[in-house]
Structure formats: C-alpha cells, structure tokens
C-alpha cells in the first residue's frame, strides 16, 4: 500500500487516524450539517448524505453563517465529530471549529491535499508534528 506524507502546521496537538472524507467544496453553516446525525445536508454538495462522524475531514474552508462552528460543536456534544481535521488553509470559521472540536488538526499545508488525498484513504493526522500520513486505498472498481 502506497504511503505519502505531507506537511503543514500543527494547530491542535494529538494523533488520530481514520478514513478520509475529502471536501474540496466548502460546507455552509446554516443547513450545512445535521447536528443530530453528522450528515452533510447542503443541497447539491458533493458530500451530501455523508457523515463527518469519525472521519479525517479534509476541508477547503468555511462559508455562510458566522455560526459555522456551532454546528460542529452541537454535533460533538452529541458524540458526533471528525476524528481529525486537515485544513489546507486556515480561516476564521474553520479555526473556531477546530478549537471546539478539539481533535488533532493540521493546517496551512505545504502542498495541495486535494491532489493527494481521496475519500476513503486511511489518513493519520499528527497535530503535534504537523504531518499528515496517507495510506492510499484501492480505488479500483
């Protein structure tokens, strides 16, 4: 299995691994994530219907409501949270969400993770050292 390591800035320390959920499209605040299921409910979003629960969420950024983080917060209180965050470029909405989720987070990556990580890859996020290790899943068939 191919292993790739990309580097960024460790923002929230700790190590966690899980399957990647890759969102090149931002997720909106209101009507973006169902706080009770963790599912993306934004109409037409490529990840619509997928859940953020226990995934390594690779997300381009936030948009919409300034209450963006509160939806991740409310989901986390219900036990639904990504196990780690990979944010190619930090912004204020995702920054607050990272703090409220409190999961290992790497931000401001040196290379484009959307060129490297695909949904389903097994990803280990080390928020202390700022490394993201990707073990490629077989995407055949």
């Amino acid at each position: 299995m191919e292993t790739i390591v990309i580097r960024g800035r460790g923002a929230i320390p700790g190590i966690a691994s899980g399957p990647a959920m890759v969102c090149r499209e931002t997720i909106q605040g209101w009507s973006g994530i169902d706080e009770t299921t963790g599912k993306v409910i934004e109409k037409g979003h490529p990840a619509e219907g997928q859940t953020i629960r226990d995934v390594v969420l690779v997300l381009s950024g936030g948009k919409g409501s300034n209450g963006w983080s509160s939806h991740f917060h409310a989901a986390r209180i219900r036990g639904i949270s990504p196990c780690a965050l990979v944010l190619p470029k930090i912004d204020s909405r995702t920054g607050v969400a990272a703090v409220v989720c409190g999961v290992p987070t790497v931000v401001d990556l040196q290379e484009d993770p959307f060129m490297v990580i695909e949904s389903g890859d097994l990803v280990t996020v080390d928020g202390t050292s700022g490394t993201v290790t990707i073990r490629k899943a077989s995407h055949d068939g």
Partner: protein
Amino acid sequence: MQLSEEELSILDGQGGPLKRKTLEFIVNYATVLGADSLCRVSKAHLFCGAHHYLKAVRSKDMDEVMSEMWFCSPDKILFDAVGCFSQSDCSPVDHINWSKMGCYEDEFRENERYLDRCLKAGVHLVGSCVPYMTGFIPVRGEHYVTTESHAVLMMNSLWGACSNADGIEAAFCSAVCARTPRWGMHVPEGRKGTHLFSVTCKPETVEDWDLLGYAVGLRLPPHSTPILEGNVAGVDMLRLKSCFAAMATTSGPELCHILGITPEAPTLAACLSPSGLEDRIEIGPRQLREAREILCDQQAGEVNYVSLGCPHYSIDQISEAAAFLGGRKVHENVTLHIWTALPIKAVADRCGYTKTIEDAGGTLMVGSCPLVSERWPAGTRAMAFDSAKQAHYIKPLTSAKVFFGNAGECLQASISGKWGR
C-alpha cells in the same frame, strides 16, 4: 505568542474564572490561526437566546448550557459580565408576538431566561441582525466581533472596521475578555482583494443587488476577497445589506471592496493583493437570471406564508411596505410577517406604519426571523421571501415550495394568495 502583562494576569486568574476561561479560548483560537498576538475588542454583537442548537447539551441548567456552548467550558461558569459594549443578535423568539410565530409559552419563557442572563451580564437586548442600524457602528480600524455574517461584510467594507467571521463561541469569549486574535481582517495585509468581479449587468433595485451578491458568492473561492467594479454606482446601504447577506450565504468573504465607493478601494491598486489578481469574473444579466432560477420555485401557485425583512427591515423599507398595504387586506389564507429590530419598530409604531400593517392583516415582528427560529405557520405549503439568504437556507429545511422575489411581488402575493410573475 506575545501576551501583555494584563493578559497574563487574566490567564493567571486575576479577573475571575469566566475571564480566564474566555481568554484561554481566544489564545487557543489564535494559536490555531497562527496569530502572534491579540488585539483589544471594543464591541461585540452576540447570538443571545435559547437557540435550538443549544439543545445538544442535555441539561436543564441554563448556566451549564451557556458554559459549554458559549464558552466551551465543561465546568459551569456564570456568565456575569461582558468586557466591552455588547448588543444581542437575533434570538429564536419575538418577545411580543411569539404566539404568532407558532412558539409555545414555555419556549418564550425559556428564551427570556437566557436573555435576562445576558442583560444582567451587560448585553443590550437589541435583538437584531442589523446592529449597524441600531447604534453599533465601529469606525475605521476599530476591532469588533459579530455573530452575523453579513454584518461583518457591512462594517468591514463600508467603514473599514475590523472583524473576522469567527464563530459564536469566539464572539462570546471575545465579548468577555475583550480580545481577539490579531489576524485576518485585523491586520492590513489580510484585507486585500483577490478576485475582480466586473459588474456588467445594471443592478438597480434591492432585488438586483441581492441576486448580485448571491451570484458573486457562487463564484468566489474560499479564502478570497472580492473587488466589485463596473456598474456599481447608485448602490446604497439598503442595497448592500441585501447584497452582502446573499454573498455571505454562498461564500465566506469578510470584506468586499467596491471600487470608488468603499474607503479602502479608491483605486484597484490601493485594494489589490500584492500577489495580484487570482481571477477576473463577469457578472452579467445571465448570472442574475440563473441566481433567481436557483432561488425561486419555477411553478406558480398558492402562497400561504410571506416573510419580509432578512436582514431586518429599515424604517424606510417598513414605510414602503405600509404604503403598499394601506387600504388592502392580506388574503385570508396567508400569514404576513415583516421582521425588524425593536428600536426600529418603536419608530414604526410612532409613525403609524405598524398600525397600517396590522390593519391590513400583517404583523410587524421583532428580534428573530424564520431562519433563526426555524418556525413558520403550521401547514405552510408555500412561502415567499424577498431575501436570497432566507430562501436559500430554508429550502433544505422544508418540503414547502419556496418563492423568491422583490418586496412588491411578495406583498402582492400576500394580498392575492398566489405567486406568479
């Protein structure tokens, strides 16, 4: 991170547990952003009230809920003081006409309990998404926080004030410790434009500007700051109120330069990022038509709920609605709500606009909206909004038809009970 003596003493507990906890949050947030210092916040606009998302905490103890959801503290700490001038944003309940929203008395009372705690902590209970129309006016270079996305765009863009979008938790923490990370919109290099939008359509009405904002947002990548040029003359605060509300729905900018109009954009060179333009995008009549097609159900039909005032209506918008409704009657199958801020309603009461609206069968509502309250009349099968933001966000939450149009179309639908151009 460089922290002042005062900040270090707060972290040491000198200002009490609430101030310490809130500053700890802001320092953590600053670390995530990569900020190397904090700046002093003078104003905070806060999402106060018993909002639905708070129900995630299974506790009857309001202070436990506030501690977790507003201050990220699993330990209960009393919200007893803000550290800067603070106003409340929308809550889920109109404290006057709550029953007309479909709220129950226990929901009204619970919301009042939350608001009362905020009041005792020093938050002025304005209850509006348009703080800049009710005395919350930061000047150029002033650092503030707000929980309303379009308000960031308004106050950063029009007056050169400084806030990031942040989030509800960060806003409450900043309100208490009066600090926010010195990063993004709080530093000059974070405020430069990246994407040039050539406005080749001719936006005139509030609806045109609403659609323009929606169309710009659909094309604006994350981490970008738009610059508008072209047919932008004639824009005013009301048009920008709708434009920015829509733009902050389909994208996430915290500042929008308008060449020759906003103070940091006297010329393109003055507001442009040192790395140059990342893209040039044209917004013409076709892009506005496409935006409207996304927002408005294409099949004409009956309407039984009409809601105006997202963002909250100004006094002149209320006056225009009252002028339209004077001598007419809202259809017996339609509920008409017009939303505004409490201080603006006081003026509408004084001027007789409220009575005209009520005589026609509508209601001038305060302090909330269908989106924040997630309430509309029971049995609603089709609703009409004069706000792209409201139509966009409510569509996924309902099986009812959603229509979008200008205020005149919506008011006409409230009279006829039907939608159709």
